[in-house]
């Protein structure tokens, strides 16, 4: 009987079938349909006509797309390292069991359970001019308040602050788990060598959790490339599009301007970009950890 378990049998495939059906219908098929749409001049409400790669051409010369692309890349380049570094720092600081640390762990993770609209509501109330917490504080300190949500540069920054606040819990937790997997003898050996805390960190801790660092970075890159809700609800992409991310561009082109073909083309391009960025990160980290071993 053991053989029937091990032997290749069609009936064994039945276990995969339910997922496979969902996968084909809701992922594979829409993916190809999306590509098909991107090759057509088609709006929200009716059939279109084949236009080849014209939509891709229109997207690639659209200054608004290029600006959104730049915004998104800047956002990822800044927010991902911050999330990784801050997450790692918190994990190191809280990697022991006391009342205080478990309270703080709980606190830093708690924001992750809130939905994006609550997070943006909270941060709008912090950033809005006049009535916001920062405006009230700067008035109390007689400092000229900054119009965070409507000044170019500051608006994307504000979206970033809200995002880090919202997303910091997961990296911290993943790092905490990884830290607890490091064998104690590594630290004991380092202690025998009288290594400085910094040296222990860079020579023992970080190399031991290199895989987790890579994992966290890839997860965050993929997530932050998909930035949408925070920007739409806090700044609406403004001023002058300086905080408009790619996903918001796709949404606007599709659902405000009805240009579904162009939106589909832009979303396929975003797909490619995420794929390349995640792969690059993976390859670089994998090579690094190989080199360090």
């Amino acid at each position, binding site marked *: 009987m053991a053989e029937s378990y091990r032997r290749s049998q069609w009936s064994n*495939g039945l276990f995969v079938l339910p997922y496979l059906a969902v996968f084909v219908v*809701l992922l594979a098929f829409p993916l190809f349909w999306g590509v098909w749409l991107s090759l057509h001049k088609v709006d929200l409400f009716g059939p279109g006509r084949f236009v080849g790669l014209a939509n891709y051409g229109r997207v690639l010369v659209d200054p608004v797309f290029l600006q959104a692309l730049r915004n998104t890349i800047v956002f990822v380049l800044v927010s991902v390292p911050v999330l990784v570094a801050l997450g790692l720092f918190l994990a190191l600081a809280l990697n022991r069991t006391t009342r205080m640390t478990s309270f703080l762990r709980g*606190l830093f993770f708690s924001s992750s359970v809130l*939905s994006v609209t*609550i997070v943006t509501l909270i941060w709008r109330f912090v950033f809005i001019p006049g009535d916001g917490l920062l405006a009230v504080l700067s008035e109390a300190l007689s400092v000229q308040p900054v119009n965070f949500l409507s000044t170019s540069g500051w608006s994307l920054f504000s979206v970033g602050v809200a995002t880090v606040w919202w997303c910091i819990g997961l990296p911290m937790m993943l790092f905490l788990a990884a830290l607890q997997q490091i064998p104690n003898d590594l630290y004991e050996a380092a*202690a025998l060598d009288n290594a400085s805390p910094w040296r222990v960190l860079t020579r023992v801790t970080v190399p031991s959790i290199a895989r987790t660092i890579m994992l966290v970075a890839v997860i965050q890159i*993929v997530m932050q490339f998909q930035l949408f809700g925070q920007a739409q609800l806090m700044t609406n992409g403004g001023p002058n599009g300086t905080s408009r991310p790619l*996903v918001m561009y796709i949404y606007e082109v599709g659902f405000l301007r009805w240009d579904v073909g162009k939106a589909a083309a832009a979303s396929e391009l975003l*797909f490619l970009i995420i794929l390349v960025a995640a792969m690059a990160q993976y390859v670089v980290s994998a090579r690094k950890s190989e080199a360090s071993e």
Partner: protein
Amino acid sequence: MSADRSTYRPENMTANRTPLTIAAVLSVAMMAPVAWLLGLSIKDNMELKLGTDSVFELPYTLVNYLNILHSSQVFGWFFNSLVVATGQTFGVLVLSSLAGYAFARLEFPFRRTIFVIVLFGLAVPEQAVIIARHQMFNWAGLHNSYVGLILPDLSSALGVFLMTQFFKAIPREIDEAALLDNASPLRIFWKVLLPLTLPAQATLGIFTFLRAWNDYWWPLISATKKEMFTLTIGIASSQINFAQTEGLGFLSAQAVFASLPVLIVYLIFQRHIVTAVSGGAVK
């Protein structure tokens, strides 16, 4: 993760209290916005219109919370979010466990090919498929329904990938013992292996629940009737032009009210959630 292993780190880190102090300071920054929201929620709307610095002064009031009770739709939205997130979590767990078991333990034609194709699905972001999905669901008449909100994310390959890894991590000897008793693959799955994956189920379940709970774009374009709004979309619909309509105090109270249940659940299950999330990193 072995619970009995000492979580203590060497003296040189413990002795240095600076990181902990900095973390404590950061926690204040973490809490300040929420404290501000709480403050706004217990102030009268009219008073806030004249200036929000009145948050630091008496009088306080619960009138905003009372208003929620008799006029806000937040209960309905909350219920919808709950149905969608629970349904999606359940669906993902069932599909991923079945598929993960088969990929990890069983042999069937094209197993490797199918697994590679599914892994490729990991790389497909929602944006690449959302417009086509929206059109498919138009055709099937599935928008503005729980099914329509639950279905799309069932296709996520992450769950299958994680469950495959978890099943692989279970020692072979366990199911081989069961095989000697002539158990069928289904029986082995159900009676022997599935109970062993409960921690993994918790991890995947919490991830899925949180993602479903916080989903924004799909419900934004699929749940367009207010009876079907999820909490995320409902709060979004009322937060624009706030000073002009409902008032800062009311919106704050609504946000507090909407977050309380998840926060309470989180506090109750905190220990498990931490273990579960951490478990996700264990290879």
